[in-house]
């Protein structure tokens, strides 16, 4: 692959909205896990005579998303019909937005490799999802397909990005930042595996330094961050190889094959659909009042980047800590509750990020959902900071309480796990350790620092982890003066 070519990448993201009901009827928007075709009504089945009526909450969620992405919200917007035949599309058209979407001209800032990238958002608009198709085997070889319309009509927000990405690895970073924003807003559950968040990519190549765009290839069927990056890397290589050979790139749609890790041509430009968009006559247009927009804007939650910045500035956290803690707004709220309950912020962050987060990851749950209330974690952090319990014991206590739901302070008290900081008691333990490990003692005195660690470990073991390790170190050094 030569360095002559530069990729120009833009993403189109489809996000199902977390409304109660579908976009244009009263069926449930939460369609997963139901028997096929049991979440439908005459409207979403597209039966003759039925009419759509717009879901107010879906419109509001889209406007909130658009505002969070810094978009303009025009005063006038309308819906259009996108006409094409497919068995998962009951009406033979999708109600979508064509020339006058709910919003346009926003941007998304995200980080990749420590660098901040700013990508434009062309528009955020609202449409309806299609049903799902099942095949016996592969779609193109199966003798028949089976249609489930439970998903048909679920509100779907389309976020069209400007072709501002230049490297395949920027795509997953962009998508992660967008996903996090949607989850902060509570408008999407971020689940790519189940398809409630989907991503298509457009990629074209141009000669470095040139502003002329090459033929655009649309890549579909990528359902993880990893597959998006792999698919774009594959395309970058495929296209630059072709260009290097002096060949041209066909404008087409290609699908990512997870199995073979290649993209496969699906549809060329000649076969491109002609959608015959026209204004949806069944839905009166929308006039979006300015005071309504301003109210929604003022009610937006703190967004991920702002929250990270504040965590760093207000609590002196590291960037990494801030990133982990702000993964979800609930986790960040948990952290702030721990601090509010009296824990020193950086200690609290350490405990949440290093210990509690690990336990939660193993249990596949969010920190905010765990059985340890913020006040209990704050108490534990305080006990450690005040040397009243050793770090090692506290870690074990946390794991046990995480499983049982017991209060850490209560467990420490009931088991007598408080840290031993009594000098006489510790001196006795130190004497025993030195007597039992004469070689380590002499090694230390001979200049081997590591030997001290084994002596501390021996004391800790004898005290069943309760000894104040800092004091033990000091006492050992006093007991074994060096030449």
């Amino acid at each position, binding site marked *: 692959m030569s360095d002559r070519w530069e990729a120009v990448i833009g993403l189109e993201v489809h996000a199902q909205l977390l409304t109660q009901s579908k976009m244009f009827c009263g069926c449930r928007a939460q369609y997963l896990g139901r028997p096929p075709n049991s979440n439908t009504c005459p409207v979403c089945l597209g039966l003759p005579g039925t009419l759509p009526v717009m879901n107010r909450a879906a419109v509001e969620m889209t406007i909130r998303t658009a505002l969070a992405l810094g978009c303009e919200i025009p005063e006038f917007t309308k819906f259009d019909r996108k006409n094409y035949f497919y068995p998962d599309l009951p009406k033979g058209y999708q109600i979508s937005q064509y020339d006058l979407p709910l919003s346009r001209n926003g941007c998304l800032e995200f980080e990749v490799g420590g660098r901040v990238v700013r990508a434009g958002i062309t528009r955020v608009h609202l449409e309806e999802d299609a049903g799902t198709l*099942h095949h016996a085997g592969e779609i193109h070889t199966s*003798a028949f397909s089976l249609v489930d319309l439970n998903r048909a009509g679920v509100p779907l927000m389309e976020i069209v990005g400007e072709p501002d990405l230049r490297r395949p690895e920027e795509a997953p970073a962009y998508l992660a930042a967008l996903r996090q924003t949607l989850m902060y807003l509570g408008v999407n559950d971020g689940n790519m595996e189940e398809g409630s968040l989907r991503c298509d990519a457009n990629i074209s190549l141009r000669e470095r330094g040139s502003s002329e765009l090459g033929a655009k290839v649309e890549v579909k069927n990528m359902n993880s961050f990893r597959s998006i990056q792999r698919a774009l890397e594959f395309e970058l290589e495929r296209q630059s190889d072709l260009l290097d050979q002096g060949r041209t790139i066909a404008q087409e749609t290609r699908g990512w094959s997870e199995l073979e890790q290649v993209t496969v041509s699906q549809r060329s430009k000649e076969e491109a659909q002609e959608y015959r968009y026209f204004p949806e006559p069944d839905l*009166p247009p929308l006039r979006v009042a300015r005071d309504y927009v301003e109210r929604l804007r003022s009610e937006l939650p703190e967004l991920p980047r702002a929250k990270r910045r504040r965590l760093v500035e207000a609590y002196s956290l590291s960037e990494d800590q801030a990133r982990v803690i702000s993964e979800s707004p609930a986790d960040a709220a948990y952290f702030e509750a721990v601090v509010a309950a009296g824990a020193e912020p950086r200690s609290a962050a350490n405990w949440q990020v290093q210990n509690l987060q690990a336990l939660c990851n193993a249990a596949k749950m969010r920190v905010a959902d765990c059985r340890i209330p913020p006040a209990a974690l704050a108490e534990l952090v305080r006990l450690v900071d005040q040397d009243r319990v050793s770090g090692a014991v506290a870690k074990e206590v946390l794991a046990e309480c995480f499983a049982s739901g017991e209060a850490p302070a209560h467990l420490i008290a009931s088991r007598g796990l408080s840290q031993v900081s009594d000098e006489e008691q510790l001196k006795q333990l130190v004497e025993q350790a030195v007597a039992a490990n004469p070689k380590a003692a002499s090694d230390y005195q001979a200049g081997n620092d590591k030997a001290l660690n084994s002596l501390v470990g021996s004391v800790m073991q004898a005290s069943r982890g309760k000894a104040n390790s800092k004091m033990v170190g000091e006492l050992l050094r006093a007991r074994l003066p060096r030449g």
Partner: protein
Amino acid sequence: MVADENAPELKASVFEPAQVAHLSRLARLGLTESELRELGGQLADIVNAVGRLAQAPTDQVDPTAQVGGLYNVMREDVVVDGLSQEEALVNAPSHEAGLIRVPAIQ
């Protein structure tokens, strides 16, 4: 009445068989050769007749997609019971295991 100066020539449309076939394909009409020929002639007549539109003084005129002047007609986000699986499938010509069966996509 002044004709719109930007109006494209709408007169004397002729529908080539390939063009009618394209429309038939887009609309999944499955027309036969003879049907395509007959329809081509009729479409040409109709399109030539509606070509009169080019003479209308529409220069400074906004399009009307809907009458009645309604805006912002929305429903609240409330779940309403729909159809059972059996009711949803009762009109489907072919179904199995609760799914609607259609011939192979390609």
